[in-house]
């Protein structure tokens, strides 16, 4: 960030924590643990030890045993591996996938790819608050259903799905369950081994680790086919030279994460911001009011366009949609699926707080938003009320 800028887009990515940078730096350069971790010589074995330590750190944080964690390039690759790999490895059981319209593009587009390969996909319904009930999931399950994929924390609204309850219904019907946990890792407690979750997607860069590294959790006994070939790394599931410095950064980031304590602090900041924004007439919070992650606030400002509001407060990094979609000036498909009109969806901003967000920043943002919403509403005085419900 440059001086004067306020970062409130932690759901898109988080700055790398200085302690993570230091751990990563130890794995770079001739003096560092920079050898190939697959090499049998002592430098290679030292690098391997760093990788395995990181694997254990990550496993500990997500409530899993280390051997269930396989490194990938990030949650998008993990989602692809979970859906494509599990459907391919279990095609003898059927070719039916269940997911929701609220998922990240990494799941939706992969589901589309599966459809083009002859699989069928069902989209489970959600309520107006973006919550998916276990009953609704179970109602979609068929005899040929192989996999259900539901994200844990929605990247746009912050709504938390009860993945333990959903997974339980899947297991009762003999169906595999995948959870995209990219937004929840490090912010919401995870107990993957205890929960009925077979596959989970994890990433480092949304929890103060580096970009370009993630992992997939694969419960013991669950079959997944690799997407790429060329080596025995990660049990042959994800071949390629392991990126020691990134893996170490991922491990350190999750070692530092404290979902219980830090989650409570984030929730305080989020609620402080909402209190400041709720003074704006007509403002509405999208997503379930309590079943939500501590860091995301999705807010509609009727009577203004989010694109204009975003430019008006350009010293603040806030989002008009998920980062992956922000270059496209079209309404959020997640908000549309939740029943918001195009005009309301286009009047919506996502704020996401993080470890480095201060109370003073929150108060400044709320004040600036109140002033700019008032200015833009005055600019549009006389306009038809397209954002009325």
């Amino acid at each position, binding site marked *: 960030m440059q001086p004067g800028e306020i970062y409130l887009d932690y759901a898109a990515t988080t700055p790398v924590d200085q302690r993570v940078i230091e751990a990563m730096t130890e794995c770079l350069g001739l003096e560092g643990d920079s050898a190939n971790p697959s090499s049998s010589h002592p430098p290679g074995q030292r690098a391997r030890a760093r990788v395995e330590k990181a694997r254990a750190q990550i496993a500990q944080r997500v409530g899993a045993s280390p051997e269930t964690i396989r490194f990938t390039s990030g949650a998008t690759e993990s989602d692809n591996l979970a859906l494509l790999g599990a459907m391919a490895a279990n095609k003898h059981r059927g070719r039916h996938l269940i997911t929701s319209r609220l998922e990240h593009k990494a799941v939706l587009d992969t589901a589309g790819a599966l459809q083009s390969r002859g699989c069928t996909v069902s989209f489970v319904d959600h309520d107006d608050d973006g919550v998916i009930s276990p009953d609704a999931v179970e109602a979609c399950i068929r005899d040929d259903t192989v996999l259900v994929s539901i994200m844990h924390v929605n990247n746009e609204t912050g709504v938390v799905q009860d993945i333990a309850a959903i997974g339980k219904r899947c297991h009762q019907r003999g169906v595999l369950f995948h959870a995209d946990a990219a937004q929840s890792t490090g912010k919401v407690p995870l107990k993957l081994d205890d929960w009925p979750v077979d596959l989970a997607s994890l990433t480092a860069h949304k929890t103060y680790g580096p970009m370009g590294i993630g992992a997939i959790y694969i419960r013991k006994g669950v079959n997944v086919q690799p997407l790429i070939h060329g080596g025995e790394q990660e049990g042959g599931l994800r071949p390629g030279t392991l990126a020691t410095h990134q893996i170490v950064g991922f491990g350190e980031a999750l070692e530092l994460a404290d979902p219980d304590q830090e989650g409570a602090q984030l929730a305080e900041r989020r609620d402080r911001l909402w209190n400041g924004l709720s003074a704006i007439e007509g403002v509405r919070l999208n997503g379930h009011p309590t079943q939500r992650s501590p860091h995301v606030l999705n807010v509609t400002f009727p*009577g203004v*366009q989010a*694109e*204009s509001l975003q*430019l*008006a407060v350009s010293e603040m990094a806030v989002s008009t949609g998920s980062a992956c979609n922000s*270059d496209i*000036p079209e309404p959020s498909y997640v908000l549309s699926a939740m029943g918001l009109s*195009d*005009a309301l969806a*286009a009047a919506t901003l996502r704020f996401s707080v993080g470890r480095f967000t201060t109370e003073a920043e929150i108060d400044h943002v709320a004040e600036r938003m109140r002033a700019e919403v008032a200015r833009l509403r*005055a*600019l*549009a*005085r*006389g*306009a*038809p009320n*397209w954002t009325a419900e």
Partner: protein
Amino acid sequence: MDYDSQVRQRFLSAHRAGPLNDGASGLVSGEAEDRTLNVWVRFQLRMLHGAIHTVRYNVYGCPHTVAAAEWTAERLEGRPAGALDELSMRKCLETLGIPVEKLGKLLLLEDALAACRRRLDEHKG
């Protein structure tokens, strides 16, 4: 989205935004809207001795649309009424560095100016 400095400056200042006094004489207004484009715009002109003396506008739209409304108001003030027919949003697009994908929204501004022109002709008639 990356905005040209000309767009940024006009959007943030919007000097000519706001209504003219409805009670004043020589006032004409015209508006246009397109819900699918999420744009509404209204121009108000004060005519004096057959020329456009003052222009004010209200607009609901994206930053490019707001900046284009401000640019339009700048261009019209002090010009004869015929300028209402001559102002080109393609010229605005080029001058302000607005992406061509936004032309549809900007053309609503031309529609609002055309509505002003019709009111002006009605007053003359």
